């Protein structure tokens, strides 16, 4: 037993290295949302393309849907956009946009130029619904189930990997 004493520093170093290694893989920007597993906040907002028409949380109950927070001023949204357009083409799930702190004309022009993957976009000019959804880094994406409960949140641009590995399997189980 005593002969193994010299191994103690090595073991301690190994443990420390494991912890630091795991720490490197964590993304400090990914703050776990307290909203997961809770009902989505209530809302009733005008559509981006039609100020007279509104969409509310109740309108979307009964179907699984995706909420994608975007803005025309958001550089990372532009990066994500082709992925989202491609995903929308498959029509697996209705995608609603939350046009966050934008100017209506700018948002519409952006969609006109780059393509519109959304079934509809909600227009959140003052960012109030964004706060209710705990949005802090646009783009953000939420998966909401038939009961209106938030099941998944992704912060930052969607990638084909996130869609394939996280969102699509979840959609399959929710829509089953």
């Amino acid at each position: 037993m005593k002969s193994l004493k010299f191994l103690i520093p090595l073991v301690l170093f190994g443990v420390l290295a494991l912890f630091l290694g795991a720490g490197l893989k964590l993304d400090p920007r990914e703050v776990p949302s307290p909203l997961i597993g809770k009902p989505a906040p209530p809302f009733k907002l005008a559509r981006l393309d039609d100020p007279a028409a509104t969409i509310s949380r109740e309108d979307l109950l009964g179907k699984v849907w995706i909420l994608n927070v975007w803005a025309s001023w958001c550089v990372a949204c532009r990066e994500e956009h082709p992925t989202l357009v491609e995903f929308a083409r498959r029509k697996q799930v209705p995608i609603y946009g939350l046009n966050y702190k934008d100017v209506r004309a700018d948002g519409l022009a952006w969609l006109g130029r780059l393509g519109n993957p959304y079934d509809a976009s909600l227009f959140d000019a003052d960012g109030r619904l964004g706060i209710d959804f705990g949005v802090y880094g646009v783009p953000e994406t939420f998966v909401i189930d038939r009961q209106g409960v938030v099941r998944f949140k992704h912060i930052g641009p969607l990638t084909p990997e996130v869609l394939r590995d996280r969102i699509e399997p979840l959609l399959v189980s929710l829509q089953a």
Partner: protein
Amino acid sequence: MRIANVFACRAALLLCAAFLFGLGGARAGEAPQLAADPALEARVMELTSELRCLVCQNQTIADSHADLAIDLRNQVREMLRRGDSREQVLEYMTARYGDFVLYRPPLKQSTMLLWFGPALLLVGGLAVLVVVLRRRLRMPAESFEPDEDLPAVASIHDGSTARNP
């Protein structure tokens, strides 16, 4: 002549006083325009300086110039103005952004290590120190390297019979 001087002095003092009071009055009148409600503003600053800005995570919402921080400051101001308590504001924030927004994390099972970890490390370190020191205390003098500065130790080198325990 002296009396005249005294009067002149008094008049000057009065003028000074009037001037100062006048200024003071003017200042008090201006204040409300600068900040609608300084007491409310102080509470907003006090509360938001305990909340983390999620956009620039090492800044408080009070310090940050990020758009979201400005929105959240306005939100806190609005809530306090309509009479919400400090707890209600903190609850509003944590319901949306989680405990992460609190610079002072709540004491829960998941934060036990965070709260007591440093104390555990300190106690553990002290325990190791005590054990090592006590073990050394029981060791004979021969098991230590001789300290060359001490004459008593030097005598050991000399081979004399005087030994220092």
